């Protein structure tokens, strides 16, 4: 991305167009997760650790195949296993790979107070810059997917980078690379949307999943990670995938109107005391007053 961002757009004193312009257009990238073909092998969990250099951490057994209850600061990719009983009494074991959704309108970024600690690249990837992170945890408040996690040792926040270091070098993310069933796909947002819709249509028409559909929630401007679900009307069944995620309204007010109302009030207060001083001045007590007061 650093190379792409330094691509020259305009040029001075040059006859004709910018040399090399538009030969490398920047696409919005997207990860497609087809939950209907996931087998829960957790190869993506291992690949994520391998590529990002984290050791395997302690697991938590909770009567399911799930590795731990939720993602951790050094465990960014977690398959959530959920047994869901259908209306006919049949049981489905739903498996969803959980990680950062790389929202087009990221709540973490909106909530973050530290200059440059969270960035969104031109390709759509949302990335934490630990050099600038102050560890306040505001991103946790902003995220509708419960993704940013705090590392107590470094006091910084961490999450999935969508392997931005691989993607900018023309490679797919590590999780995609490792998937044995091909349920993970990576490409441009437009291509992945097409592929997802085609798969959902296939599921509806040929496999009896009448409610199959694509999860690309508009409340956060769409996401850089989209799902094909057997039942798109009930994403909550897939381990707390919110039906209509959006940046929490408290965060929106906090970072929007409350800021300007608060700033105006503070500046108003300062102006108020200055004006009072200019109009009425200080209260002085003359030392003689004791005698004067005593006489009256």
């Amino acid at each position, binding site marked *: 991305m650093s190379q792409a961002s330094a691509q020259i757009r305009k040029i001075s004193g040059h006859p004709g167009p910018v040399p090399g312009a538009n030969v490398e257009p920047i696409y919005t990238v997207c990860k497609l997760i087809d939950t209907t073909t996931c087998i829960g092998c957790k190869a993506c969990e291992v690949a994520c650790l391998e590529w990002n250099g984290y050791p395997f951490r302690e697991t938590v057994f909770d009567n399911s195949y799930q590795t731990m209850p939720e993602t951790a600061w050094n465990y960014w990719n977690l398959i959530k296993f959920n047994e869901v009983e259908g209306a006919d009494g049949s049981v489905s074991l739903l498996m969803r790979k959980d990680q950062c959704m790389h929202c087009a309108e990221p709540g973490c970024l909106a909530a973050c*107070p*530290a*200059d440059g600690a969270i960035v969104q690249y031109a390709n759509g990837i949302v990335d934490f810059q630990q050099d*600038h*992170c*102050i*560890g*306040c*945890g*505001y991103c*946790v*408040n902003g995220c509708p997917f419960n993704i940013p*996690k*705090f590392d107590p040792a470094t*006091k910084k926040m961490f999450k999935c980078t969508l392997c931005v270091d691989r993607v900018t070098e023309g490679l797919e993310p590590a999780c995609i690379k490792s998937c044995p069933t091909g349920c993970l796909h990576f490409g441009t947002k437009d291509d992945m949307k097409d592929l997802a819709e085609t798969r959902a249509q296939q599921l509806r028409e040929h496999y009896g999943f009448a409610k199959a559909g694509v999860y690309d929630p508009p409340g956060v401007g769409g996401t850089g990670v989209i799902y094909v679900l057997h039942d798109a009307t009930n994403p909550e069944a897939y381990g707390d995938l919110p039906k209509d995620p959006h940046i*929490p*309204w*408290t*965060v929106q007010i*906090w970072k929007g109107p*409350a*800021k300007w109302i*608060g*700033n105006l*009030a*503070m500046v108003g*207060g*300062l102006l*108020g*005391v200055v004006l*009072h*001083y200019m109009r*009425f*001045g*200080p*209260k*002085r*007590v*003359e*030392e*003689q*007053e*004791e005698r004067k*007061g005593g006489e009256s």
Partner: protein
Amino acid sequence: MSASHVVPGSRESRIVRYTFDERIHHWLAGISYVYCLITGLAFWSPYLFWLAALVGGGATARFWHPWSGVIFTISVLWMYKLWSKDMATTDADRAWSKAMKYYVENEDEKLPHIGRFNQGQKTFFWLMLYGAILLLLSGLGLWFVESIPAWLRHLSIAVHVIAALATIAGFIIHVYMGTAMVRGGFNAIVTGEVTSSWARHHHRLWYEQVTRNK
């Protein structure tokens, strides 16, 4: 603390207004509040994030802000222990409040006499006390954000912001009045002493009370 004595070199007798204990806790609260204010404003707005650089950078500010808040709350609770009786509103305060216009416009001679603190000081005290408690409780929600449910996170943000802005309003007025407007007030909270005329002028009932048994 009712002793009144003549300070050598001064033309006028001085009265002890604040004990050492009171002054220590006032300044503990004051310094910890200002630290929280500077760092809090840095987290509040990107245009004020530079304030964090004054106290060692964003990560350092983030680390100490909650601890400074704990110190502030403890010192304010200590002030409650010291002052809660003095801070109760009396009939004299109610009469004074009705005439507060004269206080604001520096026509003090038209004001009814009052005790050790005026209603403005009392309101400020209760504002900071309840503000400190709310800021600490909601601050815990922001501090340990990963350990609480989402609804409590959002409640914490709302309470912390509203309580912070309310205390800032009080703080601006308090600092202005204590330094620029009411001359002698700042000296009183540093040295603990005021002149007899200052005490007579601003807190006549208190002055009469502390000088009666002289």
